[in-house]
């Protein structure tokens, strides 16, 4: 994500008291311009199990090398009642441009709440997932600059996870990481969740090797994978740190967990 956007890095240009420094072309005439996006860093992660879904995100918000806030959650309950979303069963995580993330969250939340008033039943995760895709795609010429992950339980009570690109392309997956440290976490998840490059030790060598088949993970294993992912990401990615927020969605509701991460 960071590579896609220009973040405010220290330059030889005069400093301004707002985040958007003038864009200048070396040697050429200076052109001031308004760039409507910024990157607020951070990383999100979602993993599903047979009867739960876990969504997690760090709570740091950044602008370039600055830490804006050590607690700016990227995880939002969607639906339920009131501004606290009581009784919600769907969680949205957004990483990228936080202002767009908030706008997207508010839109989706309104849609899900309206759905309940109009149809007298809770919106299913897969319906919500498709709706989110439409919201993103409708703004494809001025996109919400976010990587969204939506989590919940499907009609069979199985953990459901949907991941999106900024213009609404989406897919149901068992596991996905997004944001600043996704390139660090993804290979770890490939190996630990989807058992990539893991072989049955009893099988032969070379072409005889048999890959291990991924199995649904237990909740405890998933939570450990999540915390390991984030503590490791916080070591290597400067935009990740401060706090780890985790939402575990089960048939009993949404359980929230919080733990500290490195603050440096």
């Amino acid at each position, binding site marked *: 994500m960071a590579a896609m956007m220009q973040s405010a890095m220290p330059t030889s240009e*005069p*400093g*301004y*008291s*707002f*985040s*958007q420094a*003038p864009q200048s072309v070396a040697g050429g005439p200076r052109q*001031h*311009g*308004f760039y*409507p*996006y*910024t990157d*607020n860093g951070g990383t999100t992660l979602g993993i599903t199990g047979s009867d739960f879904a876990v969504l997690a995100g760090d709570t740091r*918000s950044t*602008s370039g090398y*600055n830490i*804006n*806030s*050590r*607690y*700016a959650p990227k995880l939002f309950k969607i639906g339920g009642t009131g501004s606290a979303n009581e009784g919600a069963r769907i969680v949205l995580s957004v990483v990228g*441009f*936080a*202002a767009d993330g*908030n*706008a997207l969250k508010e839109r989706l939340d309104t849609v899900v709440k309206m759905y309940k008033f109009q149809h007298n039943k809770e919106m299913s995760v897969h319906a919500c997932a498709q709706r989110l895709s439409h919201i993103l795609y409708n703004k494809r010429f*001025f996109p919400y600059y976010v990587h969204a992950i939506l989590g919940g339980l499907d009609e069979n009570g199985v953990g459901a996870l949907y991941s999106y690109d900024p213009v609404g392309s989406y897919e149901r997956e068992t596991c996905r990481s997004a944001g600043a440290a996704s390139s660090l976490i993804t290979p770890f998840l490939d190996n630990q969740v989807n058992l990539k490059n893991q072989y049955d030790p009893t099988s032969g060598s070379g072409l005889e090797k048999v890959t291990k088949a991924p199995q649904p993970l237990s909740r405890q294993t998933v939570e450990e994978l999540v915390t390991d992912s984030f503590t490791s990401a916080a070591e290597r990615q400067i935009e990740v740190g401060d706090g780890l927020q985790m939402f575990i969605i089960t048939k009993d509701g949404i359980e929230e967990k919080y733990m500290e991460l490195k603050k440096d």
Partner: protein
Amino acid sequence: MNHFPVGWGRPRDDVYGAYNPSYLPQSHGGTQANPITHTQSPIVTGTSVLAIKYKDGVVIAADNLASYGSLARFTDVKRLKQFNRKAVVGFGGDVSDMQYLDRLLNSLDVEENYGGDAPAESGPHMSAKNLHAYLSKVMYKRRSDFNPLWNAMLVAGLDESDKPFLAYADLLGTTYSSPSLATGFGAHLAQPIMRRAVPNEAASRELSKEQAVECIKECMKVLFYRDARSMPVYSIAVIDGKGVDLKEDEKLENQSWAFAEQIRGYGTQTV
């Protein structure tokens, strides 16, 4: 018609004459006025705004300078605006956009007081949290229209349950909240000092008003030392359960420029 695909389906020049582009804007070879343009950069600007939460409320400060580039153009500009008895907004960035927002907030306050006619000491009031939600939506709407209000601002005050509230909003619609906040240069120079006083929410619940004011004053001094677009006269407001205490003509105290002797470089010294 010729064999070039670009000419297919177009009126023939030899029959109808050359295409008359006069209805197009100048940028496209026409004679019409150019399309609507919006602010591309700020002109007269204010520098940092600082604020810190303490156990009963929030302290916020900003200097009284409005710069025209590097020129210290206006030296008595009040950049802290009291909204009501629960909220103060501190503006950084473009001053004309600040004036627009001030007028917007004034009319909002007038409308808020149409009903109720509540005496100042009681009755419902828009909380700082409500105000921040409103302001950030205005900012986000304007950036989405590619017509930004070129400001970074802090909203300081009390939320609906009279707890200290502090949050940031800027020209992109970005928002966040923290026990201490600073815009502009202050994010680099003052925020680390303030975070020493309030590393987290728990620490801000322990901080006294005097400690908070002292910390802010110290930070204003550091900013004056190092920010070339700053001045030593500033406004400071304390918002707590008793209301807003706004002072708009404070002067930096106990400055010490001794450190300047130690600075080497920038080509002025020979040794």
